């Protein structure tokens, strides 16, 4: 012990127990290997039947900078970020003091016993941990001592909070994909720490977990949105992926790399039924995806803001040349490099308009990991049906953090490969006109390259063309084509996932949210209800906005759009599409790089409503 402070603060008198409702924050250095420890705690609690969520707040750095992991436990099932944590595990010398200052009043503070930190607050319960000693005792390879040290706080926490060690072991087994040796080594440290805590610490705080009489997580899974999106794509029959690495989208491609080989080898031929190309940049990625979509593949890419910027020109081409494609944008903060590890929803307007010269793209907006999966496969059906690029707007919080979910549902429809004419069709029809609106939905028929019929070919270009895909600069041809594209946009409005509405009887105000903000808004509604404020909720799930959005707004005096962007982009899109209702639509936006909390939402809403 390097400080003169007492090891354990005096136990505050008579504090009622706080059971199954608090947050833990672990402060570490990036690259120090605490992920496994944190994920273990998270999953152990989950296995105990407790609703949890886990969020990583990390810097743009590989190793050494401060990083934090928060675990929220909420018997009520709230899983959004909370501003403060009651339980701090301070493993990073660089932030120990700050981490102490930020601990919620009455909270607890765990720290390595050799840490140089002033235990200056008196409203906190302190627990030192013999991290060095216990990890030194482990039989693990010297190189891995640093990593295994993290298991010490897992053990101490387990003792302090009452996390079942059987669940920790199960969580470790899950982590290490049942590699017995790894599980045993880690569990040994957990056990040692647990025993040490039992022998040396006095529990002097009210926080603990209890297995619920009826599990609230039974049957649920836990997963991040990027992996969910990757899985959705795999089940959507993706056949071609072109991508360029970028945080926070990389793990979506990683998911494809993980699952495609496992799920998509051709049993008969032993060959893959897909190809994945890491490109030289994002321009090439979307170029390849469009080439592949044009030639008939289910093709996708994933990226984040900078890549989206670079894809602008190709996105416009895709729109005007009418080529199916799926593009995931896992949004991060700011420009160019920006804050690549901070969340934002600031690309939405950009996506909607991506291209130059009057484009209007189709954007899906998953609100949870199950929708990441669902939109993962559905995006291909929509892309091929609508013959247009489909963007999926996810975000860093949704994409990279762990969320509970019902198990994903297997696609409930066969694939929709859209309007493609075969050689036989051409023989029957005696030809076709690529850009003619035969069915009144704005969507023409296409042929795939390689179709063996002398009338199959057409010429694709972004330039003006007539219905037969012939080059034309005639004003009539151009306007007719644009009008058809607008008609197609309206078709998209109907075909895309419709909004989810929770209408509250007698509610004056409506709330609108999308993406990862949804969790905070749902919790905020409960808070507001406690203040006597009723609020309906609408989750638009796609652009163009469905008709239901208009009805919702018309049905409420004021509708607040809650989102993470500086210029309240979804709010603006709604206003734009419904000018007659624009005055009723109000922004409630935050753009500070962290996931919005329910507290922020409810407080700000209250302030707005009561002033």
């Amino acid at each position: 012990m390097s400080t003169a402070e007492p090891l354990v603060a005096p136990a505050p008198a008579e504090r009622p127990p706080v059971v199954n409702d608090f947050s833990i924050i672990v402060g570490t250095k990036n690259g120090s290997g605490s992920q496994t420890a944190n994920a273990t705690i998270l999953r152990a609690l989950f296995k105990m039947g407790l609703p949890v969520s886990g969020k990583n707040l990390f810097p743009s750095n590989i190793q050494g900078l401060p990083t934090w992991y928060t675990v929220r436990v909420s018997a009520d099932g709230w899983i959004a970020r909370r501003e403060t944590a009651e339980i701090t595990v301070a493993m990073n010398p660089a932030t120990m003091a700050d981490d102490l200052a930020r601990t919620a009043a009455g909270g607890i503070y765990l720290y390595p016993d050799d840490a140089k930190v002033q235990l200056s607050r008196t409203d906190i319960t302190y627990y030192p941990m013999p991290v060095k000693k216990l990890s030194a005792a482990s039989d693990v390879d010297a190189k891995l001592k640093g990593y295994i040290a993290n298991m010490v706080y897992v053990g101490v926490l387990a003792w302090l909070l009452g996390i079942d060690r059987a669940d920790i072991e199960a969580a470790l087994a899950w982590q290490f994909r049942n590699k017995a040796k790894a599980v045993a080594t880690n569990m040994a440290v957990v056990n040692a720490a647990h025993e040490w805590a039992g022998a040396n610490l006095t529990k002097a705080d009210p926080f603990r977990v209890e297995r619920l009489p009826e599990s609230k997580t039974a049957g649920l899974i836990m997963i991040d949105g990027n992996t969910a999106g990757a899985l959705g794509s795999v089940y959507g029959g993706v056949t071609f992926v072109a991508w360029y690495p970028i945080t926070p989208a990389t793990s979506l491609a990683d998911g494809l790399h993980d699952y495609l080989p496992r799920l998509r080898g051709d049993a008969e031929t032993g060959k893959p039924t897909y190809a994945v190309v890491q490109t030289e940049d994002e321009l090439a990625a979307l170029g390849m995806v469009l080439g592949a979509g044009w030639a008939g593949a289910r093709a996708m890419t994933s990226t984040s803001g900078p890549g989206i910027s670079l894809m602008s020109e190709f996105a416009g081409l895709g729109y005007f040349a009418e080529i199916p494609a799926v593009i995931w944008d896992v949004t991060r903060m700011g420009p160019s490099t920006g804050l690549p590890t901070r969340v934002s929803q600031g690309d939405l307007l950009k996506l909607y308009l991506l291209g130059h010269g009057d484009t209007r793209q189709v954007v899906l907006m998953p609100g949870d990991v199950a929708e990441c999966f669902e939109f993962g496969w559905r995006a291909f059906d929509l892309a091929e049906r609508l013959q247009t690029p489909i963007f999926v707007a996810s975000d860093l919080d949704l994409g990279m953090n762990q969320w509970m979910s019902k198990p994903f549902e297997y696609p409930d429809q066969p694939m929709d490969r859209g309007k493609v004419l075969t050689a036989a069709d051409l023989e029957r029809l005696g030809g076709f006109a690529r850009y003619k609106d035969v069915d009144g939905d704005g969507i023409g028929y296409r042929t795939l390259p390689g179709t063996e019929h002398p009338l199959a070919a057409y010429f694709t270009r972004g330039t003006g063309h007539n219905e037969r895909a012939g080059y034309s600069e005639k004003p009539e041809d151009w306007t007719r084509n644009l009008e058809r594209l607008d008609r197609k946009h309206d078709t998209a409005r109907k075909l895309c996932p419709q909004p989810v509405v929770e209408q509250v009887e007698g509610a004056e105000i409506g709330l609108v949210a999308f993406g990862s903000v949804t969790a905070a808004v749902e919790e905020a509604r409960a808070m507001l209800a406690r203040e006597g404020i009723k609020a309906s909720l609408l989750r638009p799930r796609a652009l163009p906005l469905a008709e239901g959005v208009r009805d919702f707004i018309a049905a409420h005096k004021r509708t607040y759009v809650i989102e993470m962007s500086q210029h309240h982009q979804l709010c603006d899109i709604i206003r734009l599409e419904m000018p007659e209702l624009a005055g009723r639509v109000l922004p409630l936006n935050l753009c500070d790089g962290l996931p919005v909390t329910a507290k922020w939402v409810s407080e700000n809403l209250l302030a707005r409503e009561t002033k």
Partner: protein
Amino acid sequence: MPPLPSAPAPAAAKPATNLVGLTKADYKGLESTLCNGCGHDAIAASIIDACYEYGIAPERLIKLSGIGCSSKSPAYFLSRSHGFNSLHGRMPSVATGALMANHTLSAIGVSGDGDTGSIGFSQFKHMIRRNVNMVYIVENNGVYGLTKGQFSPTSDRGQELRHQPRPNEFMPIDLCMEAIISDCGFVARSFAGDPKQVRMLIKAAFAHRGTAVLDIISPCVTFNNKDDSTKSYAWGRGHDEVVNDPLFVASRDQITVDYAEGESRAVTMHDGSRIVLQKLDSGKHDPTDRAAAMRLLEDARANQRFITGLIYVDQSRPNLAEVENLGYTPLAHMPESKTRPPRETLDKLMASMK
């Protein structure tokens, strides 16, 4: 439109057909809208001839381009092929994607020196590095045609152009050298004014199983055809130094080609066809020797020689479809039964995440 001059048709002769039963007319494109005499039109005509002679089924070929006068070419040949006039400089990526979706197709890409060497330089180099299976033709006129005469990266040093305030100060890039050091397995240079050589090279390029780069000097009669331009007809005619005159012999052709061993050499392609290189006085270049190819190009650069012919060939590298281990069925045609894993697999996965 004024009627085009046409030769009197021979009385009732049935038009000749090729291996796949098509006539030359089946390989035609739309009427060109390029300037009269533009080198690009000569190349389009050679492409038609080559495809006809090679016996390509036009429906099994895709033609792609970027943006530029050159990139308009695909409209002027093979109307029965799917075409894609993409973005300026970005055709390589589009072609890559298309050929991943369907690796059983043949592909011709047509680009310009600006399209390839400026805005598309990175895509050009990376396409080659991936060895995408296509014939990539640069219609190289040393100028931006479609935007009316600015310097391109293959413009001669010292070249003058209207609207450019001073002569070009930068060294022209050598697309063949660039291709070779990007591991291209088929690199040739030719001249639009030598249609036979262009045709032979295109046929040989089809037989190559990877990216084949043809850097074809193609005079721009409107903006860069002054006699002292190395991209002019006059210069080409006056300086063309044929390092080898390739003769393409398809595997099916049983005729013994008439060439003396020692004076010529043949390269056998994967499909059994042969490229017979008729050694000419001017060079004893061995196109299978990478270092020699680089030396030849470096020497040509240093001494302002305009060399044409097959500069380098190496068939050892797998192409991208082979690297990706693609099977018989193109990805585009995979049935749902192969691309949507069965329900049980999802159930199992979900169970594992509980």
